[in-house]
């Protein structure tokens, strides 16, 4: 990770990797969408609405994973003082918020025909809503301070305190009696989903993850550019 501490070296590596990542992302999306619409069956109970799962589950998984990444980056910023760690967390936050929003909306669109309601305040849905608020709070902290170093300190606290919510979201369906169904993919006895549905789901998750990676790298590069501009402006002010 220390290799990437030099922004010039990070840019150099990112510039080489990103074109390949964008192509890979687009190709994976095409294959995943083909599988999702044309090469997977309707569910015997849910019918065609099962196809909502192919976008809902990757969105929800990434929303949780990105928050974990932000917490990890915050730890790296505190322990190793890695210059890109805070930026990595900051660049990830709007993407995590977008995936969290998509998980909530697609969940509601699945819930209406299947449960008969758009929303219930059960443990899974409520903790996911709290995750959305944490993302918004984290982004608000960065906006609230003119001095990025002061914002970074509070942002790390929000990321590290908020990460407590991640296992609550994950295990809420086991700890409480919820309308949301229990875990059916990551469980000790193996996935409870047939391979004809599991494959498109896996491909779509890969496509979502690659899109996150590409956009995150782009966001990170933008933050390095902003830092360079800020440094130049400060230098100009002090020179006067």
């Amino acid at each position, binding site marked *: 990770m220390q290799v990437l501490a030099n922004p010039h070296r990070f840019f*150099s590596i990112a510039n080489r990797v990103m074109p390949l990542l964008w192509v890979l992302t687009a190709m994976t999306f095409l294959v995943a969408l083909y599988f999702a619409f044309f*090469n997977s069956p309707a569910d015997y109970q849910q019918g*065609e609405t099962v196809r*909502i799962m192919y976008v809902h589950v990757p969105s929800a998984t990434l929303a949780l994973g990105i928050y974990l990444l932000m917490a990890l980056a915050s730890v790296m910023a505190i322990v190793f003082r890695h210059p890109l760690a805070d930026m990595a967390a900051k660049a990830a936050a709007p993407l995590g918020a977008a995936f969290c929003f*998509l998980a909530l*909306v697609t969940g509601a669109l699945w819930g209406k*025909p299947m449960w008969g309601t758009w929303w219930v305040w059960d443990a899974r849905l409520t903790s996911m809503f709290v995750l959305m608020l944490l993302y918004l709070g984290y982004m608000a902290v960065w906006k609230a301070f003119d001095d990025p170093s002061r914002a970074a300190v509070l942002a790390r606290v929000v990321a590290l305190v908020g990460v407590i919510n991640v296992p609550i979201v994950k295990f809420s369906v086991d700890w409480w009696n919820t309308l949301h169904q229990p875990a059916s993919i990551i469980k000790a006895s193996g996935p409870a989903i047939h391979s004809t549905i599991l494959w498109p789901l896996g491909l779509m998750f890969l496509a979502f993850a690659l899109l996150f990676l590409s956009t995150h790298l782009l966001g990170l590069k933008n933050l390095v550019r902003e830092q360079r501009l800020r440094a130049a402006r400060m230098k100009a002010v002090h020179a006067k």
Partner: protein
Amino acid sequence: MIDFTADHLGFVAASYGIVAVVLVAVVVRAVMKARQLKRELSSQGLSDPGQRDDQS
């Protein structure tokens, strides 16, 4: 294969539509921001970070 005459297909279409709009918006926003920052850097006579390494 999807059955285009099935019930609740509107919910499926709405889900994929919203996902497409949000994900495209996220990518476009980042690309536009990158262009704007590159313009600002060049207007101040600064090179894009990493350019030095690429040229060497």
